[in-house]
Every structure is written in C-alpha cells, then in structure tokens.
C-alpha cells in the first residue's frame, strides 16, 4: 500500500496512491482514517512530505562507503546505533526546491537515505516489537552544509535550514527489503547504487536502542544513513534518489538571491 500527503482543496491531506490515482482520506494512517469519494490524478498533484511533525531520528554512519568517506574527515563510527534528530521544520516534499541561503558557504552536500516510518508507538522494544512497529518506508535527503557542520557549536543550520529535509515521494508499506536497491542520480548521472539492507545497523537494531530511552510514536521517522559521498551542490542541480519497489524522490537545489 502507498500512502502520500498532498495539497488537497481542503488543505494538506493524507491519500492512498492506487495506480495513477490518489484517493483522499479523512484522518491519518497513524490514527484512524476513512476513504473519501474524492479522487484525483497522481500526475500534477502537489505531494508533501508524507508525515506531519514527526520526531525525526537519524543515524549518520550506516553504509560502508559513506563511513569510510567520513572517517577520512575524522568522524568515528559509534559503538552502538546512536540516534540524533533532524528538525521537522526542515521537511519538504518531492519535486520541490531545496533553498540554499544566500550566506551559506559553497559546500552543501546531499545524503540520500532510506527512511523508516513508525506505525506503532512504544518503549523498550524487543526485536520482534521493533519489527512490528515499522509501518513502511520512504526516501529522505539529509542535506548538509559542511563548513557550518564543522564550525557551528551544534548542527542547527548545517542540517535544518527550511527545505533541507526532502521526504517522499510517499510511504510504501510493502517494500521487499532484501531486494530493494537505492540509486542516487546527480543531474541524471548515476552516482551510487546499493542494497539498502547492506547496513551496519538494521532499523530493528536502531529502534531497540532508541526505545530503551525514548518513547516512539506513530508517524515518527528514522533515516538510515547515506552511501557514498556527494559533490558540492550548485544552483540548478537536480538530485534524485530511487528505491526499487518504492519510487523516486526528486529535488532541485536553488541558491537564494541567484
């Protein structure tokens, strides 16, 4: 099943994607919902990030090429799947622009990542409970300003500028993890391709660790880390991340004031 959020006549709404049609629903997949009779073509729909004000967990180093790339910059691999957060205020949808602020240094990178969507809340998950807590998967781009990340006392603007966390295009609840391959294209040229299950830490590993200390809620998300390294983004660059069996998240970088 495919769940999206989109701009309907009544404001932001959840919808179910069926073929090339969106069926509008009342409510949300995370609480209660009801299908309405309102349908619209998927084509031309303004898709929004498929979750609303989530707690947004992130583990940074989880795929080999990226871990090795970042290790050259001195960043160690944590001994356990430790989480950090991104700000929900930075979320945007697919096919929307990622705005680089005018005063941002010229070393903005993409990090395209598989993202887990939580369906069942809870605390102190066993491995089985963590598995059962997963609602589905989507795709995220953890855009990062590298100079700011190094210089600032905390990763606030280096990670959380408005529009720097594209998410989408929708949530797929039936993804075959063993088969799923993620491909990242930069201006239509393939950069990296990997099996998403080639992680160091599985979603279950992370959820078991996080839920020892924090209560998870339906609609929360966990981004699983990128593979490979990114060039620095220029005004007009287009980054696409595709997961087989899911879809493609596509966004353009735009520098403010250009």
């Amino acid at each position, binding site marked *: 099943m495919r769940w999206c959020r989109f701009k309907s006549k009544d404001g932001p709404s959840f919808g179910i994607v069926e073929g090339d049609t969106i069926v509008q629903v009342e409510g949300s997949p995370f609480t209660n919902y009801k299908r309405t009779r309102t349908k619209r073509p998927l084509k031309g729909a303004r898709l929004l990030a498929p979750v609303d*004000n989530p*707690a947004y967990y992130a583990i*940074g180093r989880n795929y080999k090429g990226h871990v090795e790339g970042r290790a050259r910059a001195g960043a160690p691999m*944590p001994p356990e799947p*430790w*989480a*950090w*957060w991104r*700000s*929900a*205020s*930075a979320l945007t949808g697919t096919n929307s622009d990622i705005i680089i*602020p005018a*005063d941002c240094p010229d070393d903005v990178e993409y990090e395209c990542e598989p993202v887990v969507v939580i369906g069942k809340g809870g*605390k102190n998950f066993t491995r089985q409970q963590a598995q059962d807590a997963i609602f589905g998967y989507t795709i995220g781009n953890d855009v990062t300003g590298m100079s700011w990340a190094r210089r*600032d*006392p*905390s*990763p*606030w*603007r280096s990670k*959380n*500028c*408005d529009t720097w966390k594209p998410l989408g295009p929708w949530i797929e609840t039936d993804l075959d993890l063993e088969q799923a391959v993620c491909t990242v294209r930069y201006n239509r040229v393939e950069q990296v391709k990997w099996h998403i299950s080639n992680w160091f830490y599985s979603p279950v590993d992370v959820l078991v660790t996080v839920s*020892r*200390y*924090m*209560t998870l*809620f339906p609609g929360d998300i966990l981004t699983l880390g990128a593979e490979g390294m990114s060039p620095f983004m220029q005004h007009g660059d287009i980054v696409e991340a595709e997961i087989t069996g899911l879809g493609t998240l596509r966004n353009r970088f735009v520098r403010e004031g250009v």
Partner: protein
Amino acid sequence: MRWCRFEYKNAASFGIIEDDRIVPVTGSPFTEYERINAGVSLKRAKLLAPVEKPIFYATSRNYKKNLQDNIGRSRSMFAAAEAWTGYRAASAITGPDSDIVIPADCPDDVYFQGEVVVVIGKKAKNLTHDEAWDAIFGYTIGNDVTCDTWATTDTRAWRGKNIDTWKPLGPWIETDLNVDKAVCRVSLNGKETVKWNINEWYFSPADVLVSITRYITINPGDILMMGTEGVRSPYVKHGDTVEIELRGLGTLRNSFVKSVDWY
C-alpha cells in the same frame, strides 16, 4: 495572562489561569480558542507541559559563570561569536510536579539546569530585532536535565539530554513577564544552588530568534530555552526535588526517581 495545559475530562486541554481557578478553552492560544463556561480548581488540577510537540530550540553557554565553567571543563568549548541554537527532543518533555526518571543503566552523574523558556506566538522568518520581540507569546520555565557521562561519550548527547521526562516544562506560560525584573532561583531539596537576573544573558531571545529565522521558519507554540547560569549543579540522587522559581511567573518543581531493573 497565564496559559496552562491540564487534564480536563480525561483529555489534555489548554486553560486560562484566573486566580485559583482554571478556565478551560476549546482550541489553543496559538490558533483560535473559545472559553468554556466552567472552572476547575488550580490546586487540584493535574498540570501538563504548557505546549504540545513543539520544535524545541535551546541555546546554551549564555550566562557568564556557566560559560566559564564549561570552558574550564572542555578545551573544545568557546564563546559563540553570534547567537546560535541547538535542539532538544519534544518527546522528552514532561509537566510540573511529575517525576524525572533516571534509567537503570544511566551513570550516576545526572545534573539539572534551570532555564527560562521563550514561547513563540507567530509564524515568522527573517525577523528584525523588533519583530523578534513581537513574535514572543510568553515565557515559561524549563529544566535541561543532563547526564555528564553520556553527554560526553555519546554522539550529539542524544541520551545525554533527551531521555523521556528529562525536559520538564511549566508550570504555565506567563504572557506579561517583565524580563528586565525577572530573577531566576534554583534550589535542590529547598537549598538554593543558583540565582540570577535573567536579562544578564549574552544573547537575548530576540538575538537568538533573529539568527534562527535567517534560516528556519518558526511557528506558534515552538519554544526556545535560554541557557542556565552558574557552575555545574550537584549530581542528583533518587528522591531529590528541584525547584526553579522565576519571579513574576511561578515555580517548576520535579523530583528525580531512579528506575530499577526488576528482571
């Protein structure tokens, strides 16, 4: 005006505090609201954190003695050249008079930090200084509970600061606080640990909001914690009670409880 959130008819409701009564409202102070023709005793009410699932900004090292103490503890600490922010997890928020639970596997060096918390009232970006003061809805009190060991060893202090119940907030929002007169006083089991004039910050709430909104849109109900004063507090023990009093606002009181693994 004083705004609270409290348990009303088995649900969470916003309310307006008038003397010793709470008038429940439908809606919220951040959107639209309507007073309900009812009243509840403030004394008997179960108060909750006065905001719901905010974006939780936190600046720190914002008062002189605290900055010096931090620099003394770590060579990587420095005075910030411009106002900046970090984040805390909204999932860690709890209300006044509730327990702060220390997990069984947590090292024994948990400390508390009383702080003034700014509550945002407007959706805004690229604020000027004057606009930033106008974007403030009111003030409340927060406790930035931290585990010394985990804050040092963990990447980005995730468990170091953001465990469930480690961010008490309340007791309510005061919209008419005079920040130039307000004094914050923190005590442990009734004994004062630190006291300061809140406007002796390096960066005022407006300074921080101007910085944040260069890059980030703030929304009604978001909060910004302003940092604590003084050297590191004593490490807490099971049963300790911390009170943070802000003159002209009220007192946020919470007790620490050490969780035990029974298996």
